[in-house]
């Protein structure tokens, strides 16, 4: 315990108290002048407590219990945080800290309902604390519902199209939650309780069918939150229409709760060994293979949907779905390298995706639009935002020197080492699509012709640019020295019961090809310096010309002509892969909706028909004859 707490509080208690206090205080005072800074302070305190907990855990504390206990209907509920939960908790409080910082200044003043935004953000943090520290399956389910509905509250606040998106999310989330409910009931039926230990003890006695059911229900239930194909349709619109910092928070950690729960249920409780024993008869296909392929499809398909988006928010959120596939795939490799890669990607993704979303919302804040066809040339007006976005897209595309490269490298590597060529090809192909897509993003917003109406745009205020630059900076630092982030990942990996991956500050040493980012980034930066030297020393002095001073085919291009090449940025590609977008998932969803409607209408018909007595007649007559036939009467 690095610091003493009053009343025998554990640090988890303190964290819960801070989160609960933040929820109430921010809902009350979020709109006040300094409300935003209060939020930053509170979330900063939560982050500090989380870091302190991490030090405890690293010192060998094992798990941090909470003194909160409840006994309801014979069910004991308790909360304990272990390394796995802590890892995700760090992301949560960190993301909340940066989100609230972003909202603290000008953003909060122009938003009409800042207190709702602050309040729901704090509520999300609180519910996530409860989920991440759940001590048994019932607590997990309750936490899961809390998190789902807190996210719903966050999404629906914006109104307009957000309402529909949030509604759709709610249906998906609830369907997932019901699958989860079924899963914990199956466990209860087999183990006689909801405890984690009870479940582990009951596992050896479970039949294969029951294990398959559990696997399917857990994977399906939690997969919805991760937006694994084919349950992915809700995520992009729901996250996109959520305002600013809340959207960044949702993107960075909300879907990751699904990953946490999947790891908890499949890896920590059921275990890789049991899962590997689950095979489809007559084939060698294991249960995890199925999930790995779902993850692979999730990497590829949403990425190429992102490529076709014309809204910057949509583009990023669709990529978020794809990135989730990488994380899951890495973990399913089940080697120390793969698991570390998957978890590291969770961390890395949180940093660059937040930077990206915040940057895009800064652009929206200034220009009022995120339509990629309506922007252009903002690099001269919003250079800092541009830098944040640039570093973000390099991370998202997984190129050196940003941290996204490191985790993706580990995932590719793990797949190749375990001889899974098709999955690794899928991972590579997903990345290729990402590169195309992020270039379109940065090009259409920041490069090319500046629109006349954006000539007087100012850079976003410091309260907004600083958080995203700091996040991008974290992305760079952990790309340069991934060992920093890998030590954090170690906590989670140890709690999962997976062997730790030996690493050093710069990366990992493997017999089959190592990675030392200190060298890679060092040389890259040095080489760019050499490039700068060559550029500036050799040749004549350059002179800068105005953006509008351009010729195309000998014709002068002036500001009043819109010539920014942004609409349908990849026409050739669209022509080839366009026909592949059949929208079969959309049709499936639509079909389910229609099925519900038709059956609903059918029942309406039944209730409206005045002839219910007819059924009663049939039942009664049959019953009477049955009884009569058995000689029950008249004796």
């Amino acid at each position: 315990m690095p610091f003493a707490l009053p009343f025998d509080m554990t640090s988890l208690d303190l964290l819960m108290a801070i989160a609960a206090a933040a929820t109430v205080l921010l809902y009350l005072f979020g709109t006040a002048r300094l409300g935003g800074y209060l939020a930053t302070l509170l979330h900063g305190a939560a982050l500090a407590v989380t870091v302190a907990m991490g030090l405890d855990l690293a010192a060998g504390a094992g798990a941090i219990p909470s003194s909160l206990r409840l006994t309801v209907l014979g069910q004991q509920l308790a909360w304990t945080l272990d390394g796995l939960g802590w890892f995700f908790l760090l992301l949560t409080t960190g993301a909340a800290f940066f989100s609230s910082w972003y909202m603290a200044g000008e953003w909060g003043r122009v938003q009409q309902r800042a207190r709702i935004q602050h309040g729901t953000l704090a509520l999300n943090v609180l519910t996530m604390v409860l989920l991440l520290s759940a001590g048994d399956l019932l607590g997990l389910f309750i936490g899961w519902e809390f998190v789902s509905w807190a996210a719903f509250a966050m999404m629906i606040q914006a109104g307009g199209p957000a309402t529909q998106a949030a509604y759709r999310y709610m249906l998906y989330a609830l369907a997932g939650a019901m699958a989860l409910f079924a899963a914990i009931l199956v466990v209860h039926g087999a183990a006689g309780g909801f405890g984690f230990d009870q479940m582990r003890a009951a596992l050896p006695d479970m039949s294969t069918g029951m294990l398959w059911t559990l696997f399917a229900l857990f994977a399906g239930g939690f997969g919805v939150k991760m937006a694994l194909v084919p349950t992915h349709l809700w995520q992009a619109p729901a996250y996109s229409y959520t305002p600013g910092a809340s959207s960044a928070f949702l993107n960075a950690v909300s879907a990751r709760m699904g990953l946490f729960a999947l790891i908890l249920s499949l890896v920590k409780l059921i275990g890789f060994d049991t899962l590997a024993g689950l095979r489809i008869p007559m084939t060698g296909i294991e249960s995890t293979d199925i999930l790995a392929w779902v993850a692979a499809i999730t990497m590829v398909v949403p990425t190429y949907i992102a490529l076709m988006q014309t809204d910057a928010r949509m583009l990023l959120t669709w990529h978020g779905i794809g990135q989730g596939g990488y994380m899951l795939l890495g973990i399913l490799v089940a080697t120390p390298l793969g698991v570390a890669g998957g978890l590291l990607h969770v961390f890395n993704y949180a940093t660059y995706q937040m930077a990206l979303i915040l940057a895009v919302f800064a652009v929206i804040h200034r220009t009022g639009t995120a339509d990629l066809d309506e922007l252009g040339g903002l690099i001269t007006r919003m250079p800092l935002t541009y830098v944040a976005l640039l570093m973000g897209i390099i991370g998202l595309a997984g190129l050196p020197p940003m941290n996204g490269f490191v985790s993706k490298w580990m995932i590719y590597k793990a797949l190749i080492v375990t001889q899974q060529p098709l999955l690794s090809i899928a991972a590579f192909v997903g990345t290729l699509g990402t590169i195309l897509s992020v270039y379109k993003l940065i090009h259409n917003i920041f490069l090319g012709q500046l629109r006349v109406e954006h000539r007087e745009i100012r850079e976003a205020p410091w309260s907004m640019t600083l958080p995203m630059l700091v996040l991008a900076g974290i992305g760079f630092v952990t790309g340069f020295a991934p060992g920093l982030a890998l030590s954090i990942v170690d906590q989670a990996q140890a709690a999962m019961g997976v062997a730790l991956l030996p690493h050093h500050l710069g990366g990992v040493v493997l017999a089959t090809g190592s990675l030392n980012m200190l060298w890679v980034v060092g040389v890259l930066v040095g080489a760019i310096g050499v490039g700068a030297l060559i550029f500036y020393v050799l040749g004549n002095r350059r002179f800068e010309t105005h953006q509008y001073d351009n010729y195309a085919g000998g014709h002068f291009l002036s500001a009043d002509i819109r010539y920014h090449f942004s609409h349908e940025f990849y026409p050739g590609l669209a022509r080839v892969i366009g026909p592949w977008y059949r929208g079969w998932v959309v049709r499936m969803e639509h079909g389910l909706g229609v099925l519900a409607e038709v059956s609903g209408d059918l029942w309406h018909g039944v209730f409206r028909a005045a002839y219910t007595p007819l059924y009663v007649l049939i039942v009664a007559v049959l019953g009477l004859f049955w009884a009569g036939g058995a000689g029950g009467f008249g004796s």
Partner: protein
Amino acid sequence: MTMDAEMLGKALYAGAVCLVLLGLYGMVVPRNLMRIVLGLVLLESGVNLFLVAAGFRADAAAPILTAPFTAQAAGPLVDPVPQALVLTAIVIGVGVLALGLALVVRVKEAYGTLDTHAVANRMARETGADPAVTAAGARTPGALPVAAGRTAEDAP
């Protein structure tokens, strides 16, 4: 004598079942509210008959106790409980019938018809029944976003 009694018992049951079936037919098939109410009456009569038959003993005396409780020696009595029940049931039946007829009158006053279909339609119009059923196939798009088809953000 016993043959006849057994036959009588069977006949009573058969009659009860027939009345019940007739009553059900009367409630289900006709479209006139009056006829339906009369079907109900038939049905109740059938049930009452069944009840009485359940307590019937061919060779028993009426369960009327006069003076000292010695009748038992004279032979078996008919079970009095079903008869008491039937009395109550008849009374209740009459009450319900009266209420039903009163409602029939009110319906006739309100809608000017006793045809069940016509009444149902008028009721539907009055309470704004779900158009989903009345106009089959005319589902309004957008009422349910899940089934509203592809939206711009789903897929390009």
